[in-house]
């Protein structure tokens, strides 16, 4: 690829990354939203977080399959409980990392 190709690629990718982030917020922040939309949008964060993390815990491989007992999932249980108890974001990140590190070193969940 030439210099021009790389530049075109990156600028093109930048445009299609920026527009979906910019258009809704600019369009919606200026007007009064109907209550049903606010109610629906209030469920979006919890739904997105769950959708982002669930496949990491319960699926994997190539081709993709369900997997129960992945180390990611086994470590997620105490990490989740720690988050519930302490409500500390930084603490949860560190505890999760530590547990995952230990689980990997011990070969937990690779069965």
């Amino acid at each position, binding site marked *: 690829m030439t210099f021009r190709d790389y530049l075109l690629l*990156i600028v093109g990718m930048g445009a299609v*990354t920026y527009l979906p982030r910019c258009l809704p917020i600019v369009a919606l922040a*200026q007007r009064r939203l109907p209550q049903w939309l606010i109610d629906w949008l209030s469920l979006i964060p919890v*739904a997105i977080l*769950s959708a982002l*993390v669930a496949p990491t815990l319960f699926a994997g491989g190539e081709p993709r399959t369900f997997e129960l007992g992945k180390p990611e999932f086994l470590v997620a249980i105490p990490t989740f409980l720690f988050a519930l108890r302490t409500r500390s974001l930084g603490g949860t*990140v560190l505890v999760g990392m530590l547990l995952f590190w230990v689980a990997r070193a011990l070969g937990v969940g690779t069965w």
Partner: protein
Amino acid sequence: MELRDGYSAQETETSGGKKLREGLAAAWPICLGYFPLGLALGVLAQKAGLSPWWIGLMSILVFAGSAQFIAVAMLDGGASLAAIILTTLVVNFRHFLMSSALAVHLRKVPRGFLCLFAYGITDESFAVNMTRFRQGGWDRWRALVVNQTANLAWIAATVAGGFAGAFIPRGAFGIDYALTAMFLCLLVFQLQGRIYIFTAIISAIFAVTWYVWVPGDSYVVVASVGAATVGFFLKRWHNAPGRRS
């Protein structure tokens, strides 16, 4: 959810320095998680033929981790420019939803600010900022600090990966679990009642099912739109007049 006016409520009381510090404090878990990811991307991009400077420019103009990973893999496989750009659009479509949800907290904010803020809307900054807006005491400036701190960490990590990533052992200190742990904790913060728990479970089931059956990243958008809609109607049905009286 109550409507908070993120623009006026907190704006006048706090000094700029305090906002900066609070934004930085909220952003550090993201930076921790971005570090191994960014290094990994830098290594892969370099192997696909991008110099560290191209990687840096890409992280500045694109700033979308998963799209960048896919683009690098496609570049390595010899895909066309149009195919890569189209794939990027599809992968990033979930930010359309996140941007819409953030708008609720940024009402009447000047358009110029929103255009700048929108640049930094990622899965991670969205999750952190939405949680903070919900808890209160959060405003657009703190949120912008979160976005841009994460952005700087991402740029630094990807460029560093392009230079030196091959020398760093994989999985050191469990750091590749940082973002998963962060998402888990932010998920806990969002579970503020039965309808939220229900929506989370539905979304997880949808996401895993879709992830296994359909290639690509569409599972995030499909599962979250599906689960939010199911949750929305369930709440309506539950609160309908005649029930629960």
